């Protein structure tokens, strides 16, 4: 086989991307070699089982994917604002909206939130690591190799082009031959292993490793949102696993699940996909709710209003999330009765969500609000998200949906909930917990610039799209030189540029703050307003997290701890701490499965079998691995804590 058979050729933009990828890769290799950082990289990061480091790697990958997905978005916006320019051809456009959607949901939103959960949840409940640290590393590497696999598709083999929903029969072997669609299937399958494992891991961590005395209804609200999210992950992801597997078997081994021959049923894909896909929406929004709740309570300097109701509304949302999937295809032939049932269940979700909105408002009511950057993101979320939520109820009305379906109205709706909800929360959470991760805050002034650029950019970009939708502009459309649509499309593109600038400022702020920000001296970074246990640790957090785990019997325990002068270092109570050993196994294991997936994508069965056998060998090795970690000595803990606390 010749190299040009698998490389994507003939596209100037892709040649440019190839060159920049090659240069970027070479630059990284050079820097690592020049500064002799290879060993450091392997020892400190690639083999790490520390939940904080894994979380940082998740977030870095997510930011990288936000960039990639953002570039896709910008290319689409350029095409739509200047349809006569011939910037993209239709095939390239199809590929770009497919990868944009898939990357933003699977490889940006989820890993960003899972990264924050990784770092914060154990700290909030007084745990020293995850229940299964090895499995946590495995999860990260499965996501990482899944992501890498999906992203190389546009230079090797060609990107998937059937939309992020990958509807059959379009995505079947007959209509989408070649490796493109296989990249989608295997990339998602591989990273899905990690997501499921993380769901189980965090669930056990939260249920079994809480600080002494901490009941479920004493847990910080972000931890609660994580627990509920994990429940959804565990019960929704296997459906995706099966759907992807069936389509893979269809495409590679010639089965007839979703085909038009052999009495296959293409509609079943839509059902399976959305039975996972709708809960997935809540997987990315519930943690966001948790983050906003933490930020709002901290900077309103009050206990979260209606804590119990907040928790129950999340649980109700989680249950309802499994009962609404048909609303994604009201127009695809279900009868009036079925549509009515799903229409009602869809609108029911607005009730617990509305309850949450009122609780946030009530928390803010008559409080002394401190307008920090995370608080700005959180305050901007409330009205923006309501716009997305209300249009969601409009879409939920089955009869009206026949008008809105597949139009830009829908596009505007889900960007309003996913950006104003999830992306704002990712930024809020990252800025909020940044000092816990890196020992310094992000620069406030640059943070505001990033916020206002992104915030205005977002509204300018997506608000016109509601009207484009009402004017009849369908989604995924490549030619848009209809005179009525053009002005709004241009405005929308201007907004997209604003968002891009906001992102650039945000990333620059990471660098700027690394260079110039003041180093934190206390663990309670936000003017001593911390309410939950993560702020009780020193900054940067020692690798064992807590020298002594405090007794907790209330919500927001750190408030009382500060009043009573208690810390997480009670010198005479320090005992040796048991910690897991670092290991390179998860990295190698998932690299081998990545290789197997790559083989399957190109239907090179020898490579696939080789990778799978490698994976089995790694599992056998793990089974015989009786390394049960090591103990941190009392002296070392005392020394570390005294240094960090300036005692």
């Amino acid at each position, binding site marked *: 086989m010749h190299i040009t058979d698998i490389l994507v050729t003939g596209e100037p933009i892709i040649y440019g991307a190839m060159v920049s990828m090659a240069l970027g890769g070479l630059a990284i290799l050079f820097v690592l070699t020049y500064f002799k950082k290879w060993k450091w990289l392997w020892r400190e990061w690639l083999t790490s089982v520390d939940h904080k480091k894994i979380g940082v790697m998740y977030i870095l990958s997510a930011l990288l994917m936000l960039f990639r997905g953002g570039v896709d978005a910008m290319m689409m916006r350029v095409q739509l604002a200047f349809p006569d320019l011939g910037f993209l051809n239709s095939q390239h456009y199809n590929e770009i909206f497919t990868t944009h959607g898939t990357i933003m949901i699977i490889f940006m939103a989820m890993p960003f939130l899972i990264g924050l959960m990784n770092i914060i949840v154990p700290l909030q409940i007084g745990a*020293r*690591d995850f*229940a*299964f640290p090895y499995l946590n590393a495995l999860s990260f590497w499965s996501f990482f190799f899944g992501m890498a696999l999906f992203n190389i598709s546009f230079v090797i083999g060609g990107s998937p082009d059937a939309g992020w929903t990958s509807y059959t029969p379009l995505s079947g072997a007959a209509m989408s031959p070649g490796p493109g669609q296989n990249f989608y299937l295997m990339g998602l399958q591989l990273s899905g292993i990690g997501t*499921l494992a993380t*769901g*189980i*891991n965090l*669930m*056990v961590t939260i*249920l*079994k*490793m809480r600080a002494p005395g901490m009941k479920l209804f004493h847990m910080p609200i972000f931890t609660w949102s994580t627990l509920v999210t994990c429940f959804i992950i*565990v*019960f*929704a*992801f*296997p*459906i995706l*696993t*099966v*759907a992807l*597997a*069936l389509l893979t*078997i*269809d495409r590679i*081994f*010639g*089965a*007839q*699940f979703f*085909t038009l*021959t*052999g*009495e*296959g*049923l293409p509609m*079943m894909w839509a059902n*399976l996909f959305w*039975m996972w896909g709708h809960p997935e929406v809540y997987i990315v929004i519930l943690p966001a709710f948790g983050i906003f709740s933490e930020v709002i309570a901290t900077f309103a300097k009050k206990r979260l209003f209606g804590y119990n109701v907040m928790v129950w509304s999340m649980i109700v949302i989680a249950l309802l999330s499994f009962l609404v999937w048909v609303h994604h295809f009201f127009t695809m032939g279900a009868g009036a009765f079925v549509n009515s049932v799903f229409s009602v269940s869809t609108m029911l979700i607005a009730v617990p969500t509305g309850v949450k909105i009122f609780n946030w408002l009530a928390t803010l009511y008559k409080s002394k609000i401190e307008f920090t950057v995370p608080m700005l993101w959180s305050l901007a979320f409330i009205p923006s998200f309501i716009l997305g939520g209300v249009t969601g109820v409009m879409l939920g009305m089955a009869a009206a949906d026949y008008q809105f379906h597949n139009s830009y109205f829908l596009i505007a709706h889900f960007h309003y909930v996913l950006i104003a909800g999830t992306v704002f929360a990712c930024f809020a959470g990252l800025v909020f917990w940044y000092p816990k991760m890196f020992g310094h805050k992000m620069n406030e002034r640059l943070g505001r610039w990033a916020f206002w650029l992104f915030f205005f950019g977002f509204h300018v970009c997506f608000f016109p799209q509601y009207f484009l939708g009402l004017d009849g502009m369908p989604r995924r459309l490549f030619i848009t030189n209809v005179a009525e649509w053009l002005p709004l499309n241009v405005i929308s593109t201007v907004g997209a540029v604003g968002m891009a600038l906001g992102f650039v400022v945000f990333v620059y702020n990471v660098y700027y703050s690394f260079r110039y920000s003041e180093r934190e001296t206390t663990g309670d970074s936000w003017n001593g307003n911390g309410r939950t246990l993560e702020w009780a640790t020193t900054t940067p957090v020692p690798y064992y997290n807590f020298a002594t785990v405090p007794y907790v019997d209330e919500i927001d325990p750190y408030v009382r701890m500060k009043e009573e002068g208690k810390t997480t270092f009670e010198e005479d109570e320090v005992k040796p*701490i*048991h*910690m*897991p050993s670092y290991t390179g196994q998860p990295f190698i294991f998932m690299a081998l499965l990545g290789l197997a997936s790559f083989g399957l994508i190109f239907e090179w069965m020898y490579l696939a079998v080789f990778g799978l056998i490698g994976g089995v060998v790694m599992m*056998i090795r793990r*089974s*015989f691995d*009786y390394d*049960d*970690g090591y103990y941190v000595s009392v002296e070392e803990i005392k020394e570390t804590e005294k240094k960090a606390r300036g005692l």
Partner: protein
Amino acid sequence: MAAEELKTGPLEYRTQEGQMSIMGFWIFLGAEVVLFATLFATYAVLFGRTADAPLPSELFEPGIVLIMTFLLLTSSFTCGLAIHEMRRGSVKGLIFWMVITLALGLGFLGFEIYEFVHYAHEGATLQSSAFWSAFFVLAGTHGLHVTLGIGWAILLLIQIKQRGLTNVTSRKFFIISLYWHFLDVIWIFIFTSVYLIGMVI
């Protein structure tokens, strides 16, 4: 990561690590239930979509499937006996019953492979129609689970030979027993909703 160890109760539950592993596996089994439920639903939806391939009622016969059911159900019972012996502290008893469990499991697998080959000869393959795709993937996923379980149990038998009964080895055996019983439950559903219904309709 507490290393404290209880002095009473079953060996596998005495450390927090053991308790967490067992709980994690229960949650994993919850995910497995969803996985198989999706496969069953797919099968139910595609039932009757045989295209030009033979009907299930022409191929399904009670004989072999009854033998397979008998083998797997018995293996679940002997697996229970193995754990009972483990609780009594008898490594010998554990190994004895576990080996019998695996032998029965292997017998089940042998019959399943024979059956699949037989169907393929009659013109019902993964590719021949939507119904047969759903059938082979549902039964095949169960068979794959049994295969993995057998391989896994062999690894654990080697470990118990090397290390004897400890918190860790007993936890591992307890978990694989959960897995094995779970596969038995799934098979009961396959037997009734796939084979029995397929024979009469």
